[in-house]
């Protein structure tokens, strides 16, 4: 609550400072003539000085407050030195609970004393925070006001702050990647302490079912990731088999043959395919497409599983069509008009121009797009969760069921095993594998696309 008011206060203070600052700059300019920066920059500069350090201070305070208070409370607790860290944290959590009014059991007098101590410290801290934040804001504002003057380059300083913020923003991507890696690596490491990494990477059997019971030795060789990867690639390949020709051909039609009206209607319609949530595709695959494919397979005399790879892959392919087609579209558009004209001028038909000039010229771009599409297929989750099977088998028959990395991650995580079971932890190892694979694919794809872009 207090924090909310403080934030509001800072906002108001900064706005006020900005107005006063720019007024003052106006006045000075009236008195002394042309200044380096316009008044508005002086105002903004004061606002930044007023708001930002105080805000940072506030955040740091909030982050540190509890640790410090805990230390103080524990330090005054009789006999705390003798407690081991676990007990200490238990004690602390009890004190905190009691202080927040949730009494789980009758507290001991020591605890009660500590609670009182904590409460007094808390209210002290609260006021200290208010006072200090306000002080920082005032000091900042004073400093900000001081520098208003003819020569002061307020614009530079404001622009520097903005640049800093922008720089920080661009680092978010790095933080995200680090976060992903960190959140996967720790749990995966625990998994690898139970299942040898070689067995995970090279094992040919994936049967998390065996190792699940508490009375069994964990592992038992049922965590071989190869068949899971194999299934992933089979399904992704099937998806590409649908998406690549359809995507490229529709891109060709739309960019080269279709009139502007047709294009204006059909292109967004195709993009709807990309916008449909994958969970919806999943339903469609499992309830409509899979039975149809099974019937087809059986009528052809091919043994067909109800969860055929073809159903999941095919539907996933449809989902990827707009992706491939819009990337191919870009690739075609990037081929300079001069190429087209060069070909037409030699008497080539449209078809010849497309097949012999545009396609080869756009190929690197298209290949990049296909690779990106492939990595998307590898990482696609909901369709396969619903429509692909869970049986890890190595078969190339598209009418059989296979499983994928993402299916296993979701199943393992929303499943029912114990927290420290290799089965649950395997999800993180799989996540790591998935991340590494898509990273590789993306890097290759980006490299191809980029290199190709440089060409024109």
């Amino acid at each position, binding site marked *: 609550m207090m924090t909310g008011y403080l934030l509001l206060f800072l906002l108001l203070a900064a706005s006020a400072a900005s107005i006063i600052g720019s007024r003052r700059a106006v006045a000075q300019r009236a008195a002394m003539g042309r200044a380096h920066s316009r008044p508005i920059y002086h105002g903004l500069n004061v606002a930044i000085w007023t708001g930002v350090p105080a805000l940072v201070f506030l955040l740091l305070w909030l982050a540190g407050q509890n640790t410090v208070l805990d230390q103080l409370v524990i330090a005054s607790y009789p006999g705390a030195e003798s407690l081991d860290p*676990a007990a200490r944290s*238990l004690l602390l*959590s*009890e004190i*905190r*609970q009691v202080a927040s*009014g*949730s*009494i*789980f*059991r009758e507290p001991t007098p020591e605890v009660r004393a500590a609670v009182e101590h904590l409460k007094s410290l808390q209210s002290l801290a609260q006021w200290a925070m208010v006072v200090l934040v306000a002080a920082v804001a005032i000091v900042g504002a004073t400093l900000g006001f001081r520098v208003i003057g003819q020569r002061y380059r307020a614009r530079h300083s404001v622009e520097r702050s903005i640049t800093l913020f922008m720089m920080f923003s661009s680092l978010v991507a790095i933080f995200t990647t680090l976060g992903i890696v960190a959140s996967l690596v720790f749990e995966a490491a625990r998994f690898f302490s139970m299942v040898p990494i070689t067995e995970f990477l090279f094992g040919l059997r994936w*049967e*998390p*079912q*065996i190792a*699940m*019971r*508490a*009375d*069994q030795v964990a592992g038992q060789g049922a965590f071989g990731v190869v068949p899971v990867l194999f299934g992933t690639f089979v399904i992704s390949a099937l998806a590409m088999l649908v998406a690549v020709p359809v995507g490229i051909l529709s891109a060709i039609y739309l960019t080269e043959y279709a009139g502007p009206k047709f294009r204006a209607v059909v292109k967004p319609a195709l993009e709807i395919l990309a916008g449909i949530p994958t969970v919806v595709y999943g339903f469609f695959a*499992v*309830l409509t497409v*899979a*039975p149809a494919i*099974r019937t087809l397979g059986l009528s052809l005399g091919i*043994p067909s*599983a*109800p*969860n055929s790879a073809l159903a999941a892959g095919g539907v996933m392919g449809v989902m990827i069509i707009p992706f491939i087609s819009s990337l191919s579209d870009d690739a075609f558009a990037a081929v300079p008009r001069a190429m087209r004209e060069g070909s037409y001028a030699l008497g080539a038909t449209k078809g010849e121009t497309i097949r012999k000039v545009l396609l080869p010229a756009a190929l690197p771009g298209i290949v990049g797009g296909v690779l990106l599409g492939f990595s998307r297929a590898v990482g696609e989750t909901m369709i396969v*969760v*619903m429509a692909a*099977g*869970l*049986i*890890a*088998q190595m078969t190339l028959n598209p009418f*059989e*069921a296979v499983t994928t990395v993402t299916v296993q991650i979701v*199943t*393992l*995580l*929303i*499943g*029912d*095993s*114990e*927290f*420290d*079971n290799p*089965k*649950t932890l395997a999800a993180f190892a799989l996540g790591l594998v998935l991340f590494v694979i898509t990273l590789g694919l993306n890097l290759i794809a980006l490299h191809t696309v980029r290199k190709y872009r440089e060409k024109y």
Partner: protein
Amino acid sequence: RDQIMVVGSSTVFPYSQAVAEEFANKTGNQAPVVESVGTGGGFKAFCGGIGEATADITGASRAIKESELKLCADNGVTDITEAMIGYDGLSIAHARSAPEMNLTEEQVFLALAAELPDGKGGFIANPNKKWSDIDASLPDFDIIAFGPPPTSGTRDAFVELVMHDGCSELEGMADLKKSDADKWNEVCSRMRQDGPFVEAGENDNLIVQRLESDPNAVGIFGYSFLYENNDKLKAVKINDIEPTFDTIADGSYPVARPLFFYVKNQHRDVIPGMKEFLAEYVSEEALGPDGYLAERGLTPLSDELRAELQTNVLEGKKLGM
């Protein structure tokens, strides 16, 4: 926090859901947040500690394990009440249009196990492709069974209640259990991976919808789904017994398991409405033979067990450690 937080088994989820809604309606309190994270996931959240961020109640389709109790204790969750609220029948069912089937547990095992004893002390991959391969009296079509994934408690229960029993009835298996328990366990627990058994994910409704379109297939799922879809599906009898509330409750239907929820008593006095919620959960209106949980497919407990349950829960009987 002014809401109760309930996590845990997907099987118990619909029941907790029903109680939560009824509780909110009745008392005008904020409805509890009920989340289905699986039994194991539930215990993980439940045993994470005490305080706002952790769950108050977790549902489970099996009893809590030693290791989970230990985790709880390590995190200061020391006062837990266990509540067994009824039974969940595991039905094997197929489309209405399919021919009647009546299977023994042994036949189920022969149809779905990964490996079968070859009669000479060794084991061979399950050769049965059609039901009629197992027994000539069974229909002559491919074995297709949709079932829960290895990660679910339902699968656990199915293996334990059907596969193990069916397995033990085979020749020589009883001896094997004594001589090499691990091997026995492996043989009796592994479901086949070569197609006839289809691990269909956690979504039982999808199984139901697929059974409709495929009269040759059978599905394995909670009884409540069969109950809701009575017009489309019918049960396969196990050992001649059809699953009904009565046969499940009196134990004659072999494939039923108890359902539980666990209460974090340390939260009882702090989370508003928790006591009332628990009271609602174990009330006659909910758990009784005509209660609304029965209406959703929960097989109720006998009167004595129910009475005991009610006192245990209301008084917060501490689970022995």
